[in-house]
């Protein structure tokens, strides 16, 4: 059957690749140009000797201010002088200017030459106004001070009075005998010679008519801060008067770093796009690459830059490569014990946490345990409360001398009442116990999510072939769960190692130091301390990288869990005889690990004197609660926390969706990188992230978000995006790709498919993911204490303040308040996702 060959008419639309390629080339060119402009701007800045780049923009605005001031206020006053008076005054002014210049330059000859050269360089009509303008800018920046009382009197004059006043000032410069108006007399009281003349001139300059206010004071002040050195000031004055700083120049110099950074990002984007489209050799302009690239830029700038900068700074503290910081740090005995403690504590927490989490997850998720739905949200409760709060509670319960639990145990075992208690919280064991109670939920969530996704037919097959539920657990369920077990365990390890809240409360009194507490102590010792802090921080980051890489490899390779399209209803194992005893054991665990600590916090929050019990007279009060929640400061902090949490969660979820699309729906090499970056971010200790952000986000890299809400949001994003990402990735992997392809075939663009099909289908997971990012950001503490500014205080910061500086009962009230808010929000989420997903 020979097929007829048809003439191949290439219709018009094939020009698209050409258009796309030229667009990319242009973008590349623009990027390179921006980098060049940025570098040029930086060089101009260093050459100028100014202290800050905005000096250029101030000079640009100063030029116009000088011109208007001269035309409206100075020229008319000079014209009002008679020919002979004017000549005398102008000679006087030139002499005074020369004296000032000589002071600044330190040598009269050079000063004269410099002035003459400058005046000569000006165009003809501007030459005679040069002297007055130079004075105007010099005195505005560094002239003699005039008290605000006198300034008030000056502005109180009406126009005629003012012109007469200023005329006499000018004349007084050359003729000391003239009677001075009272305001001028007060200002020059007890002063004569050059000093008197300068004050007179300053009065003349600042007493322009009410309408044409003299050189704006804030402009002068900021120029003063931008240019500190005398030599640079001379150049600045000359530039201001000559107006040699054009709009383009000042814009480039004052934003040189930002322009350079944007240029670099643009070049990277173009390269990536070229690579992406090339690999696809489709040269088709597709929105999704743009969106993906934008998000990758965001992560490069706000996540990778701070972490990389930290590592580089640790190895190159002052420019040259030295391991000195490391040798010094890690040989210091105290740091060495901190290292040891961190590793022991983190691994013990990992083992204990996973041993706790797996049976609980199995009992709650896959068996007919009584009240398992209640237990499920109860066990996750500790995830919803700041670890700090738990440490407070355990401190009260288990301190050796008067800890309630210890007292109880002493009476139980009949020990002498004043002996120190059986359990001492201020020990490595105490630290491990509190870390476990607070970080086992991480493993619990990961494991129970994997259990839900498991295909029930696999277990049914084992049961049919005669295996008992327990046998099936060990022969089928456990091996199938190993990847997520390991992932959950490693997650607990990384979080426990990077925690600051608990060790700072439990560890310090008992001389148990961890790397994070040492970092904070070094952090407080000024710039040298900063370098040491980064040195220690790098250690934690390296552990995090190794551990997370191993967990990724483990998860990726042995992914037994078959993604069976529809989310199947896992079958529940009947515990039969074991049902009651297991329920009792689980509730006992719940009481000890969760209910008792929270009860302690609640009771303490109602106490006046922490030492006495609630039953003592007068010891019970609602005062703490009313005090806290009535203070305006707390309400502001609450508002801030809610806003920051919500913004972080929303931005986080958008990034999570796009990045998980990139991860699961495309085949580009390197698509795993963003996912690894996100996981790395959460593995890095919060303190380290805050440190990195402070050092890189202060403007040196073109972005200055220091002391703003944005730096907090970025910090929360880096730390907590991972939990949200995991939820979205697992949800998206369950959506059969044909659902999206079918939408595409029906003519929908990528974006439309995302909104119409994928989005709605995984909405419950998006909501849960949003919440998993929101909660920790809402009460975050360790980063906040380093990044807060006056307007960006959060609940976590307020809790830290109450705990360290004011009183414990107030801190407990605040902590419990946070718990109530978070549990309420969780309830809302449960309703929102129709109970399908909540933690």
């Amino acid at each position, binding site marked *: 059957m020979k097929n007829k060959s048809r003439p191949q008419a*290439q219709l018009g639309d094939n020009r698209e690749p050409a258009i796309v390629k030229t667009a990319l080339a242009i973008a590349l060119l623009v990027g390179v140009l921006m980098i060049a402009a940025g570098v040029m701007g930086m060089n101009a800045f260093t050459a100028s000797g100014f202290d800050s780049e905005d000096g250029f923009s101030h000079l640009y605005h100063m030029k116009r201010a000088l011109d208007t001031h001269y035309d409206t206020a100075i020229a008319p006053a000079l014209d009002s002088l008679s020919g002979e008076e004017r000549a005398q005054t102008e000679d006087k002014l030139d002499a005074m200017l020369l004296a000032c210049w000589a002071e600044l330059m330190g040598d009269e000859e050079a000063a004269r030459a410099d002035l003459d050269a400058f005046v000569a360089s000006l165009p003809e009509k501007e030459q005679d106004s040069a002297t007055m303008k130079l004075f105007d800018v010099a005195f505005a920046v560094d002239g003699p001070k005039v008290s605000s009382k006198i300034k008030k009197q000056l502005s109180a004059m009406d126009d005629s009075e003012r012109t007469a006043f200023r005329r006499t000032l000018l004349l007084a410069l050359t003729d000391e005998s003239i009677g001075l108006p009272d305001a001028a007399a007060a200002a020059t009281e007890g002063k004569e010679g050059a000093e008197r003349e300068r004050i007179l001139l300053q009065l003349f300059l600042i007493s322009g008519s009410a309408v044409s206010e003299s050189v704006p004071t804030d402009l002068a002040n900021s120029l003063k801060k931008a240019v500190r050195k005398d030599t640079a000031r001379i150049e600045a004055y000359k530039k201001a008067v000559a107006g040699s700083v054009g709009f383009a120049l000042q814009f480039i110099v004052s934003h040189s770093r930002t322009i350079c950074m944007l240029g670099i990002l643009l070049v990277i984007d173009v390269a990536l796009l070229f690579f992406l489209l090339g690999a696809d050799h489709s040269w088709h302009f597709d929105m999704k690459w743009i969106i993906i690239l934008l998000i990758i830029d965001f992560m490069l700038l706000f996540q990778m830059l701070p972490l990389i900068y930290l590592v580089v700074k640790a190895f190159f503290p002052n420019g040259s490569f030295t391991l000195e910081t490391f040798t010094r740090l890690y040989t210091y005995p105290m740091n060495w014990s901190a290292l040891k403690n961190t590793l022991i504590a983190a691994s013990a927490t990992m083992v204990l946490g996973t041993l706790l989490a797996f049976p609980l997850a199995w009992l709650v998720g896959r068996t007919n345990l009584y009240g398992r739905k209640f237990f499920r949200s109860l066990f996750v409760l500790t995830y919803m409360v700041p670890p700090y709060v738990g440490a407070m509670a355990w401190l009260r319960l288990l301190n050796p001398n008067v800890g309630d639990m210890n007292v109880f145990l002493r009476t139980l075992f009949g020990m002498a009442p004043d002996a120190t208690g059986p359990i001492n919280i201020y020990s490595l064991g105490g630290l491990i116990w509190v870390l476990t109670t607070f970080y086992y939920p991480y493993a619990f969530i990961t494991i129970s999510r994997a259990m839900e996704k498991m295909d029930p037919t696999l277990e049914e097959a084992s049961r049919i072939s005669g295996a008992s539920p327990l046998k099936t657990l060990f022969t089928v369920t456990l091996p199938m769960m190993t990847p997520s077990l390991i992932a959950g365990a490693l997650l607990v390890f990384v979080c426990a190692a990077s925690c600051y809240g608990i060790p700072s409360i439990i560890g310090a009194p008992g001389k148990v130091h961890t790397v994070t507490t040492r970092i904070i102590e070094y952090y407080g010792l000024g710039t040298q301390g900063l370098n040491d802090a980064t040195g220690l921080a790098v250690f934690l980051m390296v552990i995090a990288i190794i551990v997370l890489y191993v967990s990724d490899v483990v998860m990726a390779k042995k992914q037994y869990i078959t993604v069976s399209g529809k989310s199947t209803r896992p079958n529940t194992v009947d515990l039969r005889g074991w049902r009651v005893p297991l329920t009792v054991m689980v509730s006992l665990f719940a009481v000890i690990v969760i209910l008792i600590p929270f009860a302690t916090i609640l009771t303490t929050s109602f106490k006046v004197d922490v030492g006495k019990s609630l039953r003592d007279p007068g010891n019970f009060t609602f005062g703490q609660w009313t005090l806290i929640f009535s203070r305006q400061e707390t309400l502001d902090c609450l508002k801030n926390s809610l806003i920051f949490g919500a913004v972080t969660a929303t931005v986080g979820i958008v990034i999570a969706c796009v990045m998980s699309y990139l991860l699961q729906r495309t085949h580009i090499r390197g698509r795993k990188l963003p996912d690894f970056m996100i996981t790395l971010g959460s593995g890095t200790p919060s303190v380290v992230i805050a440190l990195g952000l402070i050092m890189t986000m202060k403007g040196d890299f073109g972005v200055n978000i220091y002391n703003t809400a944005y730096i907090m949001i970025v910090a929360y994003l880096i730390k907590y995006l991972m939990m949200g990402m995991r939820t979205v990735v697992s949800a998206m992997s369950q959506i059969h790709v044909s659902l999206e392809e079918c939408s595409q075939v029906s003519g*929908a663009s990528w974006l439309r498919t995302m909104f119409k099909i994928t989005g709605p289908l995984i909405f419950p997971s998006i909501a849960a993911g949003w919440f998993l990012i929101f909660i920790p950001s809402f009460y975050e503490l360790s980063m906040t204490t380093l990044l807060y500014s006056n307007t960006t205080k959060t609940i976590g910061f307020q809790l830290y303040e109450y705990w360290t500086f004011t009183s414990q009962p107030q801190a407990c009230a605040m902590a419990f308040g946070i718990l109530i808010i978070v549990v309420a929000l969780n309830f809302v989420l449960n309703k929102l996702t129709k109970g399908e997903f909540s933690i």
Partner: protein
Amino acid sequence: MASVTIQNVTKAFGNSVVLDKFNATFENGEFVTLLGPSGCGKTTMLRIIAGFEKPTSGSVLFDDRVVSSGKVFLQPEKRDIGMVFQSYAVWPHMTVFDNVAYPLTIKKQDKATIRKKVERVLSAVHLIQYADRIPSQLSGGQQQRVALARALVAEPALLLLDEPLSNLDAKLRESMRFEIKEIQKEYGITVVYVTHDQTEAMAMSDRIVVINRGVIQQIGSPREIYTAPANPFVADFVGKIEFLEGEVRDGAIELTGCGQRLPYKGPLTGSVIVGIRPEQVQYAAAGEGELTGMVRTHFYLGDVDDCRVDLGEGKELRVIADPYMSMGVAAGKQVTLKVRSFHVFPKDEAGDFRKILT
């Protein structure tokens, strides 16, 4: 409607070649089936036509417009195609009506026309009464028809069906075949259908493209494919057949082993492969048939007698005959067989046909 031209398309995943120099043209309004065992590359070909996969080399044209080639690539959403997936891909979060209306809402047509068109196509697939149901409330067959309706509603130039009936029970499959054919006639649409079920292909197609391991074995009408298979694979894959080796000697083929002879006047010489379809063999009175043998096994299936006859030396022939014609055949009985027609293939070219089915 559109014609589809596939010029020299090759597709390889890594170094495993899935499609090898594929050349074919499907006329406008034609119903073509890509038939072949699983893993032979037929779905990949369909996905290349749809634009979900890019050919490693060669190009695809709709009418005479290049849609996929080394340099040019038209996105799927711009190819004006309707497609039904093997997993139906009916959106669980939309009602039947919204599912079917989706392509039209994308094209931003006004409400009235959407309602009219959707109702028309829903009634064509007899689902009008389920318009407001959500997919999980429908049976497999109903969901499949929703997918079909959705693919047809925008009156696309081309309809691609990827084994749409494989998840249905036999009875439903039978009626759906008929319905799809009816709808295709009514809309006069070009259809490319992918299946591994030969009866489906025979029932529905104007032409069949038999594929094995990414290589086209034969393109032809169902009748040509069945009656004049291009090679043993096609003969074996479409319909039932038994192969016997033999030598061409003076006007007849002497079957190796049992030595029996079949009259043959064809062009081939030397050693050949003979393919005999069981329904082409009849029982004959002694002396009238070409072959004789002893019935080894016999199954009475109601509408036919399915027997295996031993021709000697372990050579066997399968015979499926109408019970009334099988003259009370039974195991162990000596019979004479009349062979109405058979196919002959050169031995070397056929390769080891026994392992053809991957």
